[in-house]
C-alpha cells in the first residue's frame, strides 16, 4: 500500500507568487495514495527538511515527493534528509514547479492547475519506485597530470605530498611551460626561473612523481577511479639512464642556426639541444627534422663526442599503458599568431614582436643576455611602444573575450624596460587597464608614477616602417588627439588561446570545450576545477586566460579534489543506470550500437559444464550515464533504467493523459 508524502515549497515568493500552494496542497491531499500533504516556505532549510524527516517516521511514508525547484538544485538535499529518517533516498523525487511552472508562467489560475498536475504525475511514478543502492566503484589511487607547466607542477606536487603516486606527462622536452620563458613575474618582479626551478627540481626528485617528458597522452579508456591511459613516450635519441647532461654533444653539433622554440624564433639552437639551461630533465633531445644524420646520413658527431655513449639513433617511441584513478588536465595556453592584423604589418616587420618574445629579450639568460636589442639589426632600443588588446576584445576577429593577463604584463614590460634603459621612452596604448589582483593596481601606478611610462588610451590603427623606425599610428581618446610615435621596437599583447591539440584530447576524454577552445568547467561559479566527466579535473590557463597566482590556487584546488577521491577506497555512483534482463536478452546488441558512452559489453552465459549458453549484453555499472538510449533500441524490452523504468514512465504518462 502506497503511503506517499507530498511537500510543497513556497520558495519564498519564487513559487508562491504565481502558484497557489495551499490549493496544490489540498488537491494532493485528496489524491489516492497520498497520506500526508503540507506546504512550507523554504523546504530546503533545516526546519523544512525536519518536516520531511518527522513525517516519514510518524506517518510511515513509503515515498516522498517534494514539489519545489529543479532536482539539479536540491535532489541530493532532500534525498539525504530521507536517508537520515531511514527511507531509501531513491524513493524521494522532486516535482519542478519552479523552473517548469512558476518561473515561466504568469497566469495564477493556470499555473496552479499545472503545478497540481505536475505533482500528481510524479506521485504516480514514485508509487512504483524501488529502493536502490549506490554503486560502489573501486579507485586506483594514482593520478595522471597532463601538462608540466606551473599548473601541472603544482598539482603533481600537492598530490604527491599527499602520499599518492602521480604520473606527470609533458609534451615538451622539459617541464616549466611558459613560466620558464618569463624573465620576471608581476607584481613582485621575482625572477621567474628562480621561483620556478626549485619546484621543477622537486618534481624530478619526488619519490611519488613519475616524470614523463617529451611524451603525450594518446588514448584514454575507462571511467572515474579506473582509467587506462596510453602514453606515447617519444624518442629523444638519447639514453636517459646514461646521460649526465654534460652538454658536450651540444657543443659539437654543427647545425647551429635552427630557430629556437623556447626563444620563439628570435634565438638559435643546435639540432641536439636542451631547450634552456635550467631544463628538467637536463637531458638533450635530437630534433629529427633538422638533424643532419636523420636528413641525409653521415655526421653523428654528437655520438662520437659523448663520453658515456648515451646517444642512440635507433631509439624508438615507446607506448606505455598506465592505470590511474584521476586525471588533471593542465595543458596551459598559447598566444595567437602575431600577424593577426595586416594593418600592423601582418608579420612582415622583424621588430614587431609579441609579449613572450619580449620576455626572451628581457631575460638575463636569454638570447641577448637581457639587453633590449632590436631583432632586426641588434641595435639598442631607445623607444618602445606596447600595444594592448591585439586580437582580444575584437568581435571582428572572433575573439570577444579579454585575455586577462596582458594589462599586467604590459606594465611589467614597461617597468623592466625603463629599468634597463634609463633614458628610454615607453608608451602603452590601452583601452582599459585591468589590474584587479592583489597589489596589481599599485603595480600599474608604479609604471606611470615612478617609471614615467606614458599611457595613451586608444587602439592603434596602423604600424609601418619608415627610415628604420616603426611608425605607430594610434590615438589618445582622452584628449581626442591622434598620435604618431616612431619606435625602435613594438610589442604586441596578443590574445591568449588554448594550447594546440587540446580539442582532440578533450574529445578522447569526453570533456566539453567552449566555443573558443578552452576546456569547460563543470560549473562556472561553484565547480571551477572539475569537468563534466567524473574523475577528470582541470587547472590553469587551459580553462581560461589566467595569471600565475590564480593558476597555482586552481592547481591546488584540483589536487584537493583528487586527494578527497583517493581518501576513500571506493567511489559511489548514482544507481539510476541501465540494467539488462539476462533471461530475455537475445544478444542482438542494438543497445551497444545506440549507446553514446560505449558502456555495453559482451557477457558470456555458461552452464555448469562451462558450455556457452548464450552471449548477452552487459552494462558497465561504472560508466553508464543513464541516458536511456539503449532502452529505446532494445527490441524485446530486455534493458531498462533503474529508477526510470518503463513501468514508471508509463504510469506517469497515463496520469497525464487521464487528466
Amino acid at each position, binding site marked *: 500500500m502506497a503511503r506517499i508524502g507530498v511537500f510543497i515549497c513556497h520558495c519564498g515568493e519564487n513559487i508562491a507568487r504565481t502558484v497557489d500552494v495551499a490549493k496544490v496542497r489540498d488537491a494532493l491531499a485528496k489524491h489516492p495514495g497520498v497520506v500526508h500533504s503540507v506546504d512550507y516556505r523554504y523546504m530546503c532549510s533545516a526546519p523544512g527538511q525536519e518536516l520531511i524527516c518527522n513525517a516519514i517516521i510518524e506517518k510511515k511514508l513509503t515515498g516522498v515527493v517534494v514539489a519545489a525547484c529543479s532536482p539539479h538544485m536540491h535532489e541530493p538535499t532532500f534525498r539525504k534528509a530521507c536517508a537520515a529518517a531511514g527511507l531509501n533516498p531513491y524513493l524521494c523525487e522532486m516535482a519542478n514547479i519552479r523552473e517548469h511552472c512558476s518561473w515561466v508562467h504568469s497566469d495564477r489560475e493556470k499555473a496552479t492547475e499545472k503545478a497540481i498536475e505536475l505533482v500528481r504525475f510524479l506521485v504516480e511514478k514514485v508509487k512504483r519506485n524501488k529502493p536502490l543502492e549506490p554503486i560502489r566503484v573501486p579507485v586506483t589511487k594514482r593520478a595522471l597530470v597532463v601538462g608540466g607547466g606551473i599548473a601541472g607542477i603544482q598539482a603533481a606536487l600537492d598530490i604527491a605530498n599527499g602520499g599518492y603516486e602521480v604520473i606527470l606527462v609533458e609534451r615538451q622536452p622539459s617541464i616549466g611551460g611558459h613560466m620558464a620563458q618569463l624573465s620576471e613575474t608581476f607584481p613582485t618582479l621575482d625572477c621567474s626561473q628562480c621561483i620556478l626551478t626549485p619546484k621543477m627540481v622537486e618534481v624530478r626528485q619526488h619519490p611519488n612523481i613519475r616524470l614523463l617528458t617529451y611524451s603525450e597522452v594518446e588514448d584514454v579508456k575507462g571511467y572515474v577511479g579506473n582509467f587506462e591511459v596510453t602514453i606515447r613516450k617519444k624518442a629523444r635519441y638519447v639514453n636517459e639512464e646514461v646521460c649526465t647532461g654534460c652538454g658536450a654533444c651540444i657543443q659539437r653539433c654543427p647545425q647551429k642556426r635552427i630557430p629556437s622554440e623556447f626563444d620563439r624564433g628570435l634565438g638559435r639552437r643546435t639540432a641536439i639541444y636542451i631547450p634552456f639551461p635550467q631544463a628538467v630533465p637536463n637531458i638533450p633531445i635530437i630534433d629529427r627534422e633538422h638533424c643532419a644524420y636523420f636528413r641525409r646520413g653521415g655526421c653523428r658527431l654528437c655520438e662520437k663526442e659523448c663520453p658515456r655513449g648515451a646517444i642512440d639513433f635507433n631509439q624508438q617511441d615507446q607506448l606505455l599503458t598506465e592505470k590511474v584513478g584521476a586525471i588533471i588536465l593542465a595543458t596551459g595556453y598559447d598566444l595567437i599568431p602575431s600577424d593577426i592584423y595586416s*594593418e600592423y604589418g601582418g608579420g612582415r616587420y622583424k621588430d614587431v614582436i609579441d609579449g613572450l618574445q619580449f620576455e626572451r629579450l628581457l631575460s638575463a639568460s636569454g638570447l641577448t643576455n637581457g639587453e633590449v636589442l632590436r631583432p632586426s639589426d641588434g641595435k639598442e632600443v631607445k623607444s618602445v611602444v606596447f600595444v594592448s*588588446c591585439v586580437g582580444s*576584445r*575584437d*568581435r*571582428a*576577429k572572433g575573439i570577444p573575450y579579454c585575455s586577462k593577463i596582458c594589462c599586467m604584463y604590459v606594465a611589467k614590460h614597461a617597468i623592466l624596460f625603463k629599468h634597463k634603459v634609463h633614458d628610454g621612452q615607453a608608451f602603452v596604448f590601452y*583601452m582599459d587597464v585591468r589590474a584587479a589582483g592583489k597589489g596589481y593596481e599599485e603595480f600599474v601606478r608604479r609604471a606611470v608614477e615612478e617609471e614615467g611610462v606614458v599611457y595613451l*588610451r*586608444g*587602439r*592603434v*590603427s*596602423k604600424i609601418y616602417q619608415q627610415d628604420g623606425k616603426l611608425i605607430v*599610428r*594610434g*590615438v*589618445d*581618446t582622452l584628449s*581626442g588627439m*591622434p*598620435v604618431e610615435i616612431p619606435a625602435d621596437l613594438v610589442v604586441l599583447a596578443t590574445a591568449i588561446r588554448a594550447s594546440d591539440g587540446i580539442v582532440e584530447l578533450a574529445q578522447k576524454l569526453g570533456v566539453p570545450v567552449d566555443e573558443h577552445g578552452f576546456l569547460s568547467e563543470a560549473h562556472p561559479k561553484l565547480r571551477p576545477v572539475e569537468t563534466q566527466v567524473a574523475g577528470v579535473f582541470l587547472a590553469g590557463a587551459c580553462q581560461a586566460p589566467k595569471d600565475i597566482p590564480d593558476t597555482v590556487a586552481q592547481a591546488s584546488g584540483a589536487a584537493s579534489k583528487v586527494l578527497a577521491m583517493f581518501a576513500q577506497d571506493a567511489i559511489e555512483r548514482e544507481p539510476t543506470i541501465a540494467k539488462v534482463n539476462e533471461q530475455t536478452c537475445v544478444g542482438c546488441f542494438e543497445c551497444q550500437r545506440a549507446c553514446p558512452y560505449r558502456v555495453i559489453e559482451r557477457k558470456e552465459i555458461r552452464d555448469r559444464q562451462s558450455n556457452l549458453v548464450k552471449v548477452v549484453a552487459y552494462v558497465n555499472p561504472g560508466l553508464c550515464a543513464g541516458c536511456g538510449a539503449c532502452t529505446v533500441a532494445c527490441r524485446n524490452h530486455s534493458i531498462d533504467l533503474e529508477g526510470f523504468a518503463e513501468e514508471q514512465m508509463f504510469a506517469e504518462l497515463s496520469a497525464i493523459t487521464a487528466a
Partner: protein
Amino acid sequence: MKQATEREQLTRTDETPILLTEEARRFTEEVIRRSGERVDWCYQCGKCTAGCPVAFAMDIEPSRIMRLVQLGQSERVLKSKAIWLCVGCQTCTTRCPQEIDTAKVMDTLREMALEREVAADKEVVTFFRSFLDNIRRYGRVFEPTLVLQYNLRSGHLLQDADKGPLMLSKGKLPLRPSRNGAIVRKIFDALGGRKR
C-alpha cells in the same frame, strides 16, 4: 518653485549640460535604425580616429562622434564640421573591432544634417550640391560647369582659375556635355524632388 529656479541660475554653467532626455534617446535610435549599424556597441577604442586620414582637421574626431551619438547629442553631432570632412575612405569601417560600419554612420548623419538644415560645412555642401545638380542636368558630370558653379556658389571665384588654361591646353576638359540627364532626373523625381 522660485527658490529652485534661482538655484538653477546660480549653478548653471555655460556648457551644454548632457541630459539623456527622451529626445536624446530617440536620436540615438534613429541613427541606429537608419544606418543599420549598432552604434551602441562602440566601446570607444579610438581605432577609427587613429586611422582616419582627415581626423587632424576635424572639430570632433570620429570616435567622439560615435560617443556623442550614443549620448543622443544631436545638436553637437549634426552641426559638426567633422561629418563633412569625412571622405568615406572606409579605413574606420575596415578596422573597427566591433564590426561597426562607421563610414555608413557618417553617411546617415550627413543625411540627417541636411534634412534638419543644419549642415555646417558650406564648402563641402556646396560642392555636393553642385555635383548633384550637374548630373541631374547632363546625366554625367560635365567638369567645366561643375567647377564654375561651385566657384560661383561658394564665393571662391578664382579657385583653380590658374588650372583652367592648362587643363584646356592638355585637352583634359570636355567641350560638350552628355545628354542623358533625363534618366537621372527621373531618379531624383522618384526620390521626391530635390531638397538638398
